[in-house]
C-alpha cells in the first residue's frame, strides 16, 4: 500500500477518480448555471434550483472524502490526508478573504472567479504532495 500515483491502493484510486469526476461536475454545473443566469434571465425558482444543483457535486466530494477516511486502514496516511485537508481549508479561507476584500473594487477585481471547492481540492492535492515528499 503506497501513496503515490504509480502505486495507489484500489481504495485510493477509486477516491481520486471519483474526486476528479466530482470536480469536473462542479466546474460544469457552475458554468451552466452562470450561462443560464446571464443569458436566459430565469425566474427566482429556477435560480434557486440551479444554485442548489451546483452544490450537489460539492456534497459528493465531502461524501467521497468522508468514506475514504472511514475506510483507509493506514493510520499515517489518514492523518496525512486530514492534515492536508486542514491546509486546504486554510488556503481556501485566506484566498476567499483576500478576494472578498477586493469585492467593493470591481476595477481591481478582474480575476476569473475561483471556485472554492476547486481551490480547496487543488490545495489539498499540493499539501498531500508536500507531505509525501517530507516522508519519502
Amino acid at each position, binding site marked *: *500500500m503506497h*501513496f503515490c500515483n504509480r502505486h495507489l491502493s484500489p481504495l485510493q484510486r477509486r477516491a481520486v477518480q471519483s474526486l476528479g469526476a466530482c470536480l469536473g461536475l462542479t466546474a460544469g454545473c457552475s458554468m451552466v448555471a452562470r450561462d443560464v443566469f446571464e443569458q436566459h434571465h430565469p425566474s427566482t425558482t429556477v435560480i434557486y434550483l440551479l444554485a442548489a444543483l451546483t452544490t450537489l457535486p460539492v456534497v459528493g466530494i465531502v461524501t467521497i472524502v468522508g468514506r475514504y477516511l472511514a475506510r483507509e*486502514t493506514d*493510520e499515517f*496516511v489518514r492523518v496525512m490526508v486530514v492534515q492536508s485537508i486542514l491546509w486546504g481549508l486554510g488556503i481556501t479561507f485566506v484566498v476567499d478573504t483576500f478576494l472578498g476584500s477586493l469585492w467593493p473594487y470591481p476595477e481591481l477585481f478582474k480575476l476569473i472567479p475561483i471556485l472554492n471547492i476547486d481551490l480547496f481540492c487543488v490545495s489539498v492535492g499540493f499539501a498531500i504532495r508536500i507531505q509525501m515528499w517530507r516522508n*519519502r
Partner: protein
Amino acid sequence: MKNRLRVLRAERGWSQADLATRLEVSRQSVNAIETGRFDPSLPLAFKLARIFETTIEAIFNEELAPK
C-alpha cells in the same frame, strides 16, 4: 517518541518496504514512525511488537523532557 524500529529492522535485514508489507501499511508510515514524526496507535504498536516478537516497551521509549 524514540524507538528502536530501525535497529530491530536492521537486525532482521528487512527494508522499510518489507516491514510495511508485514504491517499492512505504507512504507511512508514505517519511515514516519522510525524517524519519530508519527506515533503509532496502540493496535499498530501491538502489531509491531508481535512482528518483532518483543514488547511495546522494548520498541518504544518515552522521551525524557529536557531539564
